[in-house]
């Protein structure tokens, strides 16, 4: 009898522990979700968005990220793997969300835009990969390498440096940040998988390959 009671107490304890964590998480997130529901914010794909893969792909992964975030860096190979596995079915949209705790990420976002000015989305994503590879993350990058990497990609250093020093992409980057705030992005990486019917699957934390693949399969209606 006592054995049963002690067992019950522990079982209840475990359930309470797990439910407590879950309920607290849901409560914390529900306020953010409520805001989203009220404002009716949904991802709007824009002509100025940077695309990797087919723009007309039925499923789009919209990522809010910045180069100095270590989780974004770890997520990048997972995204590329998904894109290669679902070639033509999934495309990737990168949006800037430079965090104030990583001030250098704003300069990197500007550098990415300067590269895109010269070589479009193809060079934008090549440069992004190179930046992720070159940066040790957490604002530890030496910004002097930005023009060097651009030059390696065939971009004139002088043109690039002038662009980087200018303020012309500030509004473009802040526009991404604004759309992110409108979608309740509060940390990076933040992923929104947009299904063909417009349904959105939101990862507010970096997903694993398995979790992202399961969501992509669902978005595509695969069995």
């Amino acid at each position: 009898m006592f054995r049963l009671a002690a067992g019950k107490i522990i079982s209840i304890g475990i359930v309470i522990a797990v439910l407590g964590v879950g309920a607290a998480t849901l409560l914390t997130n529900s306020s953010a979700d409520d805001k989203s529901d009220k404002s009716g914010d949904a991802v709007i794909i824009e002509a100025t968005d940077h695309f990797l893969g087919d723009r007309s792909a039925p499923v789009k992964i919209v990522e809010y990220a910045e180069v100095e975030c270590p989780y974004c860096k770890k997520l990048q190979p997972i995204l590329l793997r998904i894109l290669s596995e679902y070639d033509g079915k999934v495309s990737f949209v990168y949006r800037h969300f430079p965090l104030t705790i990583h001030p250098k990420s704003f300069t990197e976002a500007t550098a990415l835009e300067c590269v895109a000015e010269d070589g479009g989305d193809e060079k934008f994503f090549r440069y992004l990969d190179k930046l992720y590879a070159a940066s040790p993350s957490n604002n530890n990058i030496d910004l002097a390498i930005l023009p060097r990497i651009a030059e390696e990609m065939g971009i004139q250093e002088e043109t690039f440096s002038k662009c980087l020093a200018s303020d012309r992409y500030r509004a473009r980057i802040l526009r991404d940040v604004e759309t992110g705030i409108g979608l309740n992005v509060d940390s990076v990486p933040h992923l929104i998988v947009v299904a063909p019917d417009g349904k959105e699957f939101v990862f507010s934390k970096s997903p694993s390959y398995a979790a992202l693949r399961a969501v992509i399969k669902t978005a595509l209606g695969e069995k």
Partner: protein
Amino acid sequence: MALLAIFRSGRYFALALAASTVAFMGIAVFSQARLLAGIIPDGEIALAKKVEIIFAIPYGMLTDMTPNSLLALAITVLFGVSVAGIVYYFQLYRATAVSAMSAFSAGGVASGIIALGCAACGSLVFGFLASFFSASSLLIFIPYQSIVFGTLSIMMLGVSLYLLNKKLASV
């Protein structure tokens, strides 16, 4: 070590394993609470798909090992060990409490252990629950520096286990 000795019994090993598994699933799944809040109430998504996504989250945490998933794993293993240790301690305490409190009901003894009957049990339970909650919630809520806080929480759980071990050794 008194605490590890209890795992010679398959029953406590199974209990620790079950508690660790449940806790790991909880931490992993609720770390993507926003995704779940979107898919679970969605009537257009098949139940099988919902289950697949829910199970893919902890599976992915184990296959794509990151510092955070390692922390979650460590925390849940310590959680499982703590649960088994506390149950064992309850059993030991009960053996003496039952004879002393034979006039009381089973429920009374059990609740007494937690509330007033065994002050030491109460502090153990609350200490370990506090450590677990702080550890797991920090992993879930804090997007940055979670490794630092997670490590601190593991140390708290370690202290909680050390105290439990001392109590078991003194019985």
